[in-house]
């Protein structure tokens, strides 16, 4: 009986250790390896967004199914397409998107395993500001007995304050951590922060 209990504890420990180890390695390497692509995604997205606000989702594991949200002043249209569907291009043309730039954005997102990109609004001194919010879905972020995690990146236009533990601070009250979607983010550089989250948006 005693031996059986030890056996269970041993197996449990292995599961625990293996399930905790994925995230640190991934966060250390991902941004360094994909920095150019992420910056290109951000620049393209902002250019396209300035012309017509939207958010884009790559829905499936193969990153071939698209979710497109088009925002107007009063209504939000939510479409779902496959990348090989002609409807997609038709719709982009109808809404006067730059089809080539959008295709390049999607290609970059596929390359960097991005599953979601949007502009998030936040308020400082009662002024509305935006940050670019990107979620990455990668099989390295899945682990045995653990729900899937997403590597989420937020990109600001201005440098942001951080505390000594590299956690993002509120610009208006530097004793408080800024929460984005209810989560504390950590520093990659003074404009880019990351978090591992259970939700991609």
């Amino acid at each position, binding site marked *: 009986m005693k031996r059986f209990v030890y056996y269970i504890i041993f197996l449990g420990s292995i599961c625990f250790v293996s399930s905790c180890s994925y995230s640190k390695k991934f966060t250390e390497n991902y941004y360094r390896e994909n920095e150019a692509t992420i910056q290109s995604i951000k620049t393209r997205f902002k250019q396209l967004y300035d012309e017509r606000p939207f958010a884009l989702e790559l*829905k499936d*594991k193969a990153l071939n199914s698209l979710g497109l949200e088009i*925002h107007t002043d*009063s*209504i*939000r*249209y*939510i*479409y*779902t397409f496959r*990348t*090989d569907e*002609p*409807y997609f*291009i*038709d*719709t982009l*043309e*109808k*809404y006067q998107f730059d*089809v*080539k730039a959008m*295709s390049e954005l*999607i*290609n970059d997102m*596929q390359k960097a395993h991005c*599953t979601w990109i949007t502009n*998030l*609004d*936040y*308020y400082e001194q*009662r002024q*509305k500001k935006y940050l670019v919010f990107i979620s990455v*879905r990668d099989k390295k972020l899945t682990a045995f007995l653990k*729900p*899937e995690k997403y590597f989420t990146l937020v990109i600001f236009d201005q440098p942001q304050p951080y505390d000594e533990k590299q956690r993002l601070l*509120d610009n208006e009250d530097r004793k408080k951590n*800024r*929460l*984005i*979607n*209810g989560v504390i983010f950590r520093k990659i550089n003074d404009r880019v922060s990351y978090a591992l989250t*259970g*939700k*991609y*948006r």
Partner: protein
Amino acid sequence: MLSIYPYRKTIPLYILFQFLSFYLHASAGQLPSDSNRISTQQQALAFLDSIDHLDSSKYWPNADPDLFLQNLKTFATEPLKFYEGKGTNFCAYSALTYVPLNYDPLGFSRFMVTLYQKGRAKMGRVMFKPSAAVRKEAGLLKYKGALDISPAGQIWFLSLADHFKGYLNFFNRRFQPGDENTLWASTNYAKFNRMLRKLFLLKVHGHGADLIRPWIKDIPAYINRRATKGPIFMYLNNRLLYKKRHVATRFGIPTHYVLLLGITKVDNDKINIIYWDYGKKTLQQVEPRLLKKIIFGITGFSFRKK
């Protein structure tokens, strides 16, 4: 990788979407219950403009009076921009706010000003006397998007959540900072219908439950039939409608309330739904099977005869 396909003449989805949005704009002014309007936006604005200056309230120490008044003006003129905030559990309160903002904006403005000045006010059969914890918190909610700069919205949501309790609030009845995201602010289906009845003195017709989906053969036909009497609210499983994780949801429970503005079957066997939440109308195309799976409650209402 994506390639750009040669342009093909297809019947694009956007035509259907554009048609529906046109239909939506055209029909919005003809809701069957418009004759039940108690006051107009102009009356509400005139009342708010008549208030030269609002002093800071001792009851709501963190709610800025100028911003509060400005919020009320925005609610009166642009009711569909009313916003529940990111990540909060205020969706039920936001959905039902459509009723006073659409049918009695003057009554709502008066109620809010009284609540701000006196710390208590009556709406329908309900006397609101928000607790000290809630009064202190209003104006301080942060990282919620546009709700950050809406002390009036925060006062309204926190007062509703503080007053109305259902079984979901059983283990968390007293407000602590951060509870806007927890079960303290949650709303079960019976509580939602009760709020409509007590606040606006409506005849409420609810069909559904918290855990069991209503059995309706043809949902669009059913809803369109009900919509002739007045607006419809839907109680939905939002995890399926608006996915935030890539997991197959095994045990579906409803978590979200929306105001339904239109529903139509389209040619490709799908259903277009137009609903209002998060300060915007949304037009989304869904499979009939998915629609059946996500709807847990359909609430319609009609006005009592005067």
